[in-house]
């Protein structure tokens, strides 16, 4: 198919151009073939499995939406909603905390501070997963340093709870927010603030009528991106809480490793499909917002 396309495309072009085009295809083709196998096969297998039930007697598969409807019922629905709630709450809090932090860094006169915070954010935003879970277990877990020294257990503190997970998730979501929003804050011209001040606007009025409307697409885009990131997170929760909190990623892992019931693998695939749909929705909202915010940064 590649060969015929190239031939049709370049039939009328100059020889040099033709060579360049075919070279272009040649350079991109390995990438396309690789993704077709390493990404396409698992994705298709998931899609196929999500709509298949196997007859235990004959072993023959048939197409149905049963898996999907099961994945939206009972414990699975609770897990899905638990994930949505956790991601939404932590993403919203990360936006609320990340914006002032980014603003404080961006408006600072010290270049070193800015570089340090942005570099640290780059590390911490990728610091999800296992080490993050253990750092918090050591700090606020049942035998954690702060828990012991401040006697938090008596005050009803429990890291392995919904709010415990929120605090842990914020540790990589706030840096991600700082990274996402910094370019937009850089795009706020100081002339706009001066113009507002010259017209007698207060700081609150400036933020309410000038800065926030300009930042809004970036803020919403960041919110959506953080939501997606928290929604897909698995390692942190798995290393920390096991499965004491209902989360869709933990449910999929349980079903995949056959911890629940035999024959639940296809429900795991249906749950995965639910997750992909949510992630696709996130991207469908994020990309237009990002394009819109890019307009002000030009």
């Amino acid at each position, binding site marked *: 198919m590649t060969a015929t396309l190239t031939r049709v495309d370049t039939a009328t072009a100059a020889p040099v151009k033709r060579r360049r085009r075919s070279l272009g295809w040649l350079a991109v083709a390995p990438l396309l073939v690789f993704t077709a196998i390493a990404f396409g096969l698992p994705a298709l297998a998931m899609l196929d499995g999500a709509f298949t039930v196997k007859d235990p007697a004959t072993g023959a598969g048939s197409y149905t939406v049963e898996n999907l409807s099961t994945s939206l019922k009972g414990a699975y629905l609770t897990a899905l909603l638990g994930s949505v709630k956790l991601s939404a709450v932590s993403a919203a809090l990360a936006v609320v905390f990340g914006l002032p932090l980014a603003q404080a860094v961006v408006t600072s006169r010290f270049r070193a501070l800015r570089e340090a915070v942005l570099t640290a954010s780059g590390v911490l935003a990728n610091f999800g997963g296992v*080490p993050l879970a253990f750092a918090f277990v050591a700090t606020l877990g049942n035998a954690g340093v702060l828990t012991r020294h401040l006697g938090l257990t008596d005050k009803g503190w429990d890291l392995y709870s919904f709010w415990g997970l929120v605090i842990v998730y914020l540790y990589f979501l706030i840096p991600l927010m700082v990274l996402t929003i910094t370019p937009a804050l850089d795009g706020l011209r100081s002339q706009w603030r001066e113009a507002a001040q010259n017209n007698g606007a207060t700081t609150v009025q400036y933020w309410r009528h000038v800065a926030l409307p300009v930042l809004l697409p970036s803020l919403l885009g960041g919110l959506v991106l953080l939501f997606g990131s928290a929604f897909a997170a*698995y390692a942190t929760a798995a290393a920390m809480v096991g499965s004491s909190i209902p989360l869709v990623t933990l449910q999929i892992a349980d079903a995949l490793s056959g911890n629940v019931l035999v024959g639940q693998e296809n429900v795991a695939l249906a749950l995965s499909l639910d997750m992909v749909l949510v992630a696709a929705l996130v991207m469908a909202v994020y990309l237009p917002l990002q394009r819109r915010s890019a307009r002000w940064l030009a």
Partner: protein
Amino acid sequence: MARLNLWRWGVLGLAGLYFLVPLAASVIFTVDVPGQGVTFDAYTQIFSADGFTSSLLLSLELAAATIAVVLLLMVPATVALRLGASRLRPVVEVVCSLPLVLPPIAFVAGIVTVLKWGPEHLSRTPLFQTFVAIQNPDFPVVLVLAYVVMALPFVYRALDAGLSAIDVRTLVEAARSCGAGWPQALFGAVLPNLRAALLNASFLTLALVLGEFTVAQLLGFRPFAVWIVSVSGAQAQLSVAVSVLSLLVTWALLLVLAGFGGRTRTTSRG
């Protein structure tokens, strides 16, 4: 102005507190063991701990293979996009964004399903041997395949940012008119100018592979991150000590990279 400064330092102070306390507490946790006083056992035990060397080596090998494959795939493709195959740009962009829509756990669910086809449908074909070979626990190629896919978005962004800073076409044409062949033009003129972007892409991939847990655990392999979790039950101090160390190493790598990169910004993610 003074009020503004007060507000800024307040924000920075609170943020510093939130981000530094868990790190400091982790160090205290590993050093100040209840009932034993101050001890550095957790750190001295690391290297002799069962499985540490083998899992770390496995992770490093996987990272090296992943970096090699992802760069071999992405460098020619992104350079070609600048050299007259720009009509393919949307295709490459979509291909490299797809992994963002597939959460790792959903991806691994798909991989598990594909791997089951081996014993179920292909046991009498030569393909079956391939299925066995890529799941060899000594060097699971299937993990490399998965990690390359997961690294595509980062690597594409890093390389594209690097390429947009240089005029690839002029560089190649200059090299060609000086008599260089295509390989020479690529390796002698383009790649040296991409040094920072290549390092950036490699570092992001390295960080991804070293910290990856989801895919490896669910496929039943035991690289570094899975090993940390598996020892955490019996040796809590040890697992936290390793976590602290792995963060410090990541940090050091990033600083080295920032030093190498020089002019380019290291945080060109967003």
